């Protein structure tokens, strides 16, 4: 068992959670991602304390060189997958940013979160993972774990965008697909840094990343449903426009898509 310390003060309070995560094992020439159990030190409970991560792996912890799942920064003891967890985390993040009235403090907080974003494998920076509409380059990947929960990885060439990604992963990583689809962009309006107003804009990174996460989630669910049932005739729509497809009997992914279309 290895302990790891992050030398940053975390403004949220954290506690334990046992879960599977994606880790990049740079020493392993085989599969690039390894499922590992990852347990936050049960002793550490309070805000503004170094975070100690412990997991049952022989890998050495290095926050810069290995994936670190930010969603371990859970604020409650409630098991992942509960909508209360997402709502609770959302409330904390929003109130945290709302409390920062000085612009520079908001930027600093985002840079702080950017430093916590787990590095991802270079392959994540692919064209198919690119988030459309961002002023910076952002890549998001998603996959379902064995419990059917969504695991996200993200990267950006901008530190501020990385901060947004880190916040979103903190909110949504490990959530049920339905919970991912439920989050509305306006819920996150207080995360705005460097942008004023609440209108959607093609340069609002967190908005674009959130939509990308939701679309990828819907696609994942659609994919897993296809594996269990006869293939659907139509592919996942590329734009968030309600179409006649909504009139066919709805599968789980179609309901998710319908939610997206309304948001």
């Amino acid at each position, binding site marked *: 068992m290895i302990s790891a310390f992050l030398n940053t003060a975390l403004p949220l309070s954290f506690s334990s959670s046992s879960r599977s995560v994606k880790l990049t094992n740079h020493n392993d020439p085989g599969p690039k991602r390894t499922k590992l159990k990852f347990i936050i030190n049960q002793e550490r409970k309070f805000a503004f304390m170094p975070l100690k991560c412990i997991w049952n792996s022989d890998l050495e912890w290095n926050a810069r060189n290995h994936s670190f799942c930010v969603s371990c920064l859970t604020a409650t003891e409630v098991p992942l997958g509960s909508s209360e967890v997402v709502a609770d985390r959302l409330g904390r993040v929003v109130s945290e940013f709302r409390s920062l009235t000085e*612009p520079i403090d908001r930027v600093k907080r985002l840079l702080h979160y950017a430093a916590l974003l787990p590095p991802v494998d270079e392959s994540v920076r692919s064209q198919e993972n690119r988030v459309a509409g961002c002023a910076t380059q952002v890549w998001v990947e998603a996959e379902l774990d064995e419990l059917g929960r969504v695991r996200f990885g993200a990267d950006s060439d901008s*530190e501020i965008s990385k901060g947004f990604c880190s916040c979103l992963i903190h909110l949504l990583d490990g959530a049920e697909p339905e919970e991912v689809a439920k989050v509305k962009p306006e819920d996150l309006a207080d995360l705005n840094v460097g942008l004023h107003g609440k209108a959607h804009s093609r340069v609002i990174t967190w908005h674009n990343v959130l939509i990308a996460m939701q679309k990828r989630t819907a696609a994942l669910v659609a994919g897993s449903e296809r594996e269990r049932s006869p293939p659907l005739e139509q592919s996942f729509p590329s734009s968030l426009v309600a179409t006649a497809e909504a009139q066919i009997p709805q599968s789980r992914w179609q309901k998710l898509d319908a939610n997206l279309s309304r948001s």
Partner: protein
Amino acid sequence: MPPTPLQLFSSAMETAIHKLPSFKTINPSFYTARGTASFRVGLRRSSSSLSVSASADREGDQDLGHRTRPDFPILHQEVNGSKLVYLDNAATSQKPTAVLKTLQNYYESYNSNVHRGIHFLSAKATDEYELARKKVAAFINASDAREIVFTKNATEAINLVAYSWGLLNLKPEDEVILTIAEHHSNIVPWQLVAQKTGAILKYVTLNENGAPDIGNLKQMISRKTKIVAVHHVSNMLASVLPIEEIAHWAHDVGAKVLLDACQSVPHMAVNVQSLDVDFLVASSHKMCGPTGIGFLYGKSELLSAMPPFLGGGEMISDVYLDHSTYAEPPSRFEAGTPAIGEAIGLGAAIDYLSGIGMQNIHDYELELANYLHESLRAVPNIRIYGPVPSGSIRRAALCSFNVDNIHPTDIATFLDQQHGVAIRSGHHCAQPLHRSLGVSASARASLHFYNVKEDVDDFVRALKDTVSFFNSYK
């Protein structure tokens, strides 16, 4: 004796803070040091182009930026606790009070549809709308106002040419010459039309100076070339293309020339007859006019031979159930109710710019361009794109740049949040150009005649602080 407009004008810039109703203002005295009259009075009196040109004649010790700033109330405000430094003029310009008043007057006094009613308001609106067309024609020295088509912006104007002229004239294997430095709006319409016609798009690359390679362009022109569609001033590189020569080469092989003049018409005298271009497009909002209006200049004989682009009212003579007959240009290309107030506002912007004099604007901006480039070069680890200014190479008053290991959007965010400096970041709708330069994005500071050297100083100081801030996180 009541104060002259010049006295009011000067004194307006040096008074204490007077808040305008809807936003915070800052003390315009930052930019000058004389006078005592109130800012409010100064703004009111100095809003016409006449006061500007009058003061220009008599106020040799003040540069154009200081003289014109009071005409732009939006500049005198705080953003994020700092004095606004607006350096995003290549994206859009600010509007002088004269334009704002013209818009208000239109909607208050004679708002009505044009070319339709016989009542007083409609006649007045039609007169003013058509007068705006004449102003545009005179501004670019078109020989006839009927060569000016109002569009919603320059993008629509290029689409109009691509679809109307392009679909009619382009055949498989015909060539369209562009540069890799074109704005997306001068690439995508040609891609769409090439897809339909089988025409081939050829792109001019950059030379070793970081500007479009004119030699490459000249070599590319052949009998296969049907149109050369290029920018006048690059919105990222700040380079200026020799359009007269290009038009000469193109016409030698029977090809047409479309000039994207969005970044030149607001900043210099542009003469379509001496340039001898066949089409020219520009956008009102970049030249101190309202958004929602742009224009296409086209030689009369070309416009007359072109089919309509959009169908609807205004552009027809007679409509039958099975066919319609089309109106003559420019009406043929202005389907539906146009942006009447905006066109009239554009006319007011042209009056304002003409009152200052485009040559005066150009001369002053050349000075600003050199000052900006020189100041930015002093920032460590910076890469400025485009040619280096010299005696023979002139740049527009804008610089796109990157600083090592800091994303331009992060720079722009911090400049805004911490220093109130407005610049652009991203690909500036020129992704192919960015790719050719090996970057995905850049930051861009772009100036207009109402900017002053103090703006550049503030920006460079803020940029150095921004770089220090991000480097401290590494």
